[in-house]
């Protein structure tokens, strides 16, 4: 049993070492039902009112990545960038940060610890009796894109995805790619 879980852990770590250039993310979206997103496919990108005024240079650079990727993705879907007064959609990417809990479940066998799984993906029935769960906090960053109907001045589409807020060092250096990937994932959900 210990060996089995050990192999699984190694397998997961190995797969991540090969394929996890960015932490896993899952994009979601909400939108006004009944809105026709296909008519008048014009858009512009504006600075969100939720963006703080005093951005650091790094944050400003990331926001530029988000705004550029938004333009690219909407263009790929056949939407045409237009001046503000002619655009039907106004896209405003932004980000927020909050504290979240993370759970790591570990099993003890004869005094040895074998880390089994991160997070909540392990069905409770598979858990043994000699387990402990370690709860820690982390900073979660959420990237969001709001799409407004310019004529009605109403929010009509809202997409987002979350991942761990980048720490200093290598993780921070990879952040522009993470932001780009996140924006692609979010806008994959558009139009609904």
């Amino acid at each position, binding site marked *: 049993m210990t060996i089995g879980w050990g192999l699984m852990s190694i397998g997961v770590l190995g797969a991540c070492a090969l394929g996890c250039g960015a932490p896993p993310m*899952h994009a*979601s979206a*909400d*939108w*006004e*039902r009944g809105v026709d997103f296909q008519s008048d496919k014009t858009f512009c990108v504006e600075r969100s009112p939720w963006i703080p005024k005093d951005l650091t240079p790094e944050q400003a650079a990331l926001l530029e990545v988000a705004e550029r990727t938004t333009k690219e993705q909407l263009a790929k879907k056949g939407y045409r960038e237009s001046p503000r007064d002619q655009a039907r959609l106004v896209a405003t990417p932004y980000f*927020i940060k*909050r504290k*979240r*809990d*993370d*759970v790591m*479940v570990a099993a003890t066998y004869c005094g040895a610890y074998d880390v089994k799984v991160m*997070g*909540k*993906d*392990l*069905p*409770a029935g598979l*858990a043994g*009796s000699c*387990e*402990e*769960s*370690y*709860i*820690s906090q982390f900073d979660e960053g*959420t990237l*969001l894109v*709001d799409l407004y109907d310019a004529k009605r001045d*109403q*929010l*009509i*589409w*809202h997409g*987002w995805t979350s991942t761990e807020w980048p720490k200093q060092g290598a993780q921070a250096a990879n952040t522009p790619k993470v932001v780009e990937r996140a924006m692609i994932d979010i806008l994959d959900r558009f139009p609904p």
Partner: protein
Amino acid sequence: MRWLICLIPLAAWACGSAATLHTEHQTLGTLNGRTTYAFTTTPGLNEQGFTTGHLFNPIMQRRIRDELTRELAMRGYAVSPAENASLLVTFSAGSRQDVVSQEGQQGPVVRGPAYTVDRGALVLHFIDPESKAVLWRGWGDGVMDSEDDLDEAVRAAVRQIMESFPASKS
């Protein structure tokens, strides 16, 4: 405030089942003779650890208002300007993250498996326009899944909370 502590653990995790909603309501005054209503401002939710986040955006607010309008019309209430309304209606929503552990253990290390869930809550208030006293209050909360259809889930939540709301008696 007895009902405030009646939150029950909800949907089984990792089985893909539809989220279950737990609802409560509290009647604090008479609704007799009240036939008209108006919506008023939507405050943020800040109780029992729930806080209002980005999901309580104008799309969500319009959706809740729309479903409430439907439910109130079915019960014989008519929308009216705020100055003439016999009821003011307000609502708020929020979410919180819970760590679920055996026997509700808390702390950085707990015995047995634990996992996290995101729980959403919706609160409806029906207020007397003159005294500003809350006459009726309904609450619903449930585990949220990132794959949930928010439109369907929230409309269902409004309907379920409103099941206990009385029809208009003029």
